[in-house]
């Protein structure tokens, strides 16, 4: 996990980031191979490391629109094990639903991944340790975080490509709210809302910056996301080791100007590359997969013109 100081750097002190867009027709396609080839192409080394996959499991949604699809999570696990990871666990702390097992059973995670015991960790109910936040975008200053997250060598944020009715979009960075433990902060983790969602996103990611992102955009969600929106088939996986660049690319795929999204613009000053000329696209071009999303009225100003 990236707690070292080097993760906080202005864009001019960073190399350009590479983001891969892969066209994937369905959840039945060879997802593990797609992810494996991409991780290899991006040159990541996870040998002998403990990997934590952090999907976005929000609600018991049998339709598969709200939550990261279990096929993608399972494929990522298979990929990182194939790449020599010491262990690959899946951890999530849903923000509203306390019955995490109800979510896992509804989306059939076990059917895709096998027995969950020893593999899945409910981050809401994990042991915790205090962590001083390394940025001061909000007034949080210190949070308790799950020891499973703090002990992981390599954290992979695996969001769904969705709109969000408070901050515009929810992608790799917003997905990290799920590491904040409900046992300390409740369901929802209201302290993050009171701190200002955008500012809290920056502080959480400034402290626990994901090492890799895999965005499930095979079927995304548009409209009144992240829960009550409608399915938006896009047929893509977006991946990279810079979560800001990945989220910026996703926003562009969704037809938005990422610089107009408050927390992404600020993240681009310290957490990663947001400017399109600092992002090297691998695989498909943005133009070839662009699929403008429907947004609530209040977010139309975010559209690319």
């Amino acid at each position, binding site marked *: 996990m990236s707690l070292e100081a080097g993760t906080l750097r202005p864009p001019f002190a960073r190399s350009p980031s590479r983001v891969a867009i892969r066209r994937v027709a369905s959840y039945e396609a060879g997802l593990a191979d797609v992810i494996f080839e991409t991780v290899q192409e991006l040159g990541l080394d996870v040998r002998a490391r403990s990997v934590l996959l952090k999907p976005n499991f929000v609600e018991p949604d049998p339709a598969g629109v709200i939550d990261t699809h279990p096929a993608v999570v399972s494929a990522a696990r298979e990929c990182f094990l194939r790449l020599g990871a010491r262990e690959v666990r899946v951890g999530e702390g849903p923000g509203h639903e306390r019955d995490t097992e109800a979510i896992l059973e509804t989306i059939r995670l076990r059917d895709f991944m096998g027995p969950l015991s020893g593999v899945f960790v409910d981050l809401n109910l994990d042991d915790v340790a205090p962590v001083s936040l390394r940025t001061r975008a909000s007034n949080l200053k210190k949070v308790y975080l799950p020891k499973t997250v703090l002990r992981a060598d390599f954290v992979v944020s695996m969001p769904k490509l969705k709109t969000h009715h408070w901050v515009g979009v929810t992608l790799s960075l917003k997905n990290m709210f799920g590491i904040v433990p409900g046992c300390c902060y*409740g369901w*929802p983790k209201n302290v993050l809302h009171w701190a200002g969602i955008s500012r809290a996103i920056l502080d959480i990611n400034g402290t626990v910056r994901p090492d890799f992102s895999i965005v499930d955009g095979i079927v995304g969600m548009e409209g009144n996301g992240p829960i*009550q929106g409608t399915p938006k088939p896009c047929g893509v996986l977006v991946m990279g080791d810079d979560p800001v660049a990945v989220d910026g690319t996703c926003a562009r795929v969704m037809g938005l100007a990422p610089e107009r999204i408050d927390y992404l613009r600020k993240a681009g000053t310290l957490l990663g590359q947001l400017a399109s000329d600092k992002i090297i696209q691998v695989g498909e071009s943005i133009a070839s997969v662009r699929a403008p999303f429907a947004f609530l009225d209040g977010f139309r100003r975010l559209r690319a013109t």
Partner: protein
Amino acid sequence: MRLDQDSGRGSVSGITGFAASCCLPFLLAHQNPDGGWGYHPQAESSVEATGWALLALASAAHEPYFEVRMRGLRWLGQAQLPDGSWPPFAGQSAGCWVTSLACLALQVQDQCPAAVTRGLNWLVDAWPSEGSLGWQLRSRLLGASSIVRQDSSLRGWSWTPGTASWVEPTSYALIVFDCVAPQFRPAGAERRRRLAEAMLYDRMCPCGGWNSGNPQVYGVAGEPRVGTTAWALLALRNRAASAGKQCSLDWLQQAYGGIRGPASLSLAYLCLRAYSRPAAPLEPALWDLYERNQFLDSLLVFAWAAIALSDKLVLLASGERGEKGVGT
């Protein structure tokens, strides 16, 4: 920890087979050396897990558990903060929503009356932040009042200090105050209870039932959830009958057959029993779910299942009908 379903069917002092053969052995096997329980085996003792473990053991009320319970109660007593509240984990400095559960665990077992009194006093003084001047300003600036439908003058309890009221912590607080006879409740408790009851109804989803506390956002009706609906209904069980309660019970009863998680299932069953509503037997469904994932080794699930299956229904003790004071 895996248990053999066939060899485990039995009964221990008023509790049925699954609880006796699966839940209680899990709780007994995973008490920490310090007397508390963690959320999972080998996890650090937490106030919530310890509170629920103690309530589950109280449901069993089996004499051999006496020493186990006393060690747990001692741990709980020691975890209390000087201001009367409890933090999520011992050693943390700020009290929060688990204070209600700690008080409930102690009160149900008539233990540590002074600690319970201090906890209840803290709860009476623990106002959520909505409705405050700062909140009103913030709300106006963000335009939140036009996005979320709620009456912010109706306040219950928050998860953590300095944040807003939510259904579940409000329900826990109402349940614990209900366990204490009115004459033993702290001054101000009745006002808090009245406001909290009104707040729960205000936050009810349009079709009945509750989610965490957003009945309507951007004009779209919120979807209720099983767990929060069960807690809210349990909290309102001693209040007057109302159309809101009835339609929420109807919703829960309808949802019961489709519940996929053991925690939600146990809570729904407990709630429907409390209201004498019919529900399909809990045990077979719990066995099936246990076979699939072993409840992910979650202590809360084992504890809630034991409480739901017990004849004693410890959560439903009412101070209104008796003279039950704190620690009496």
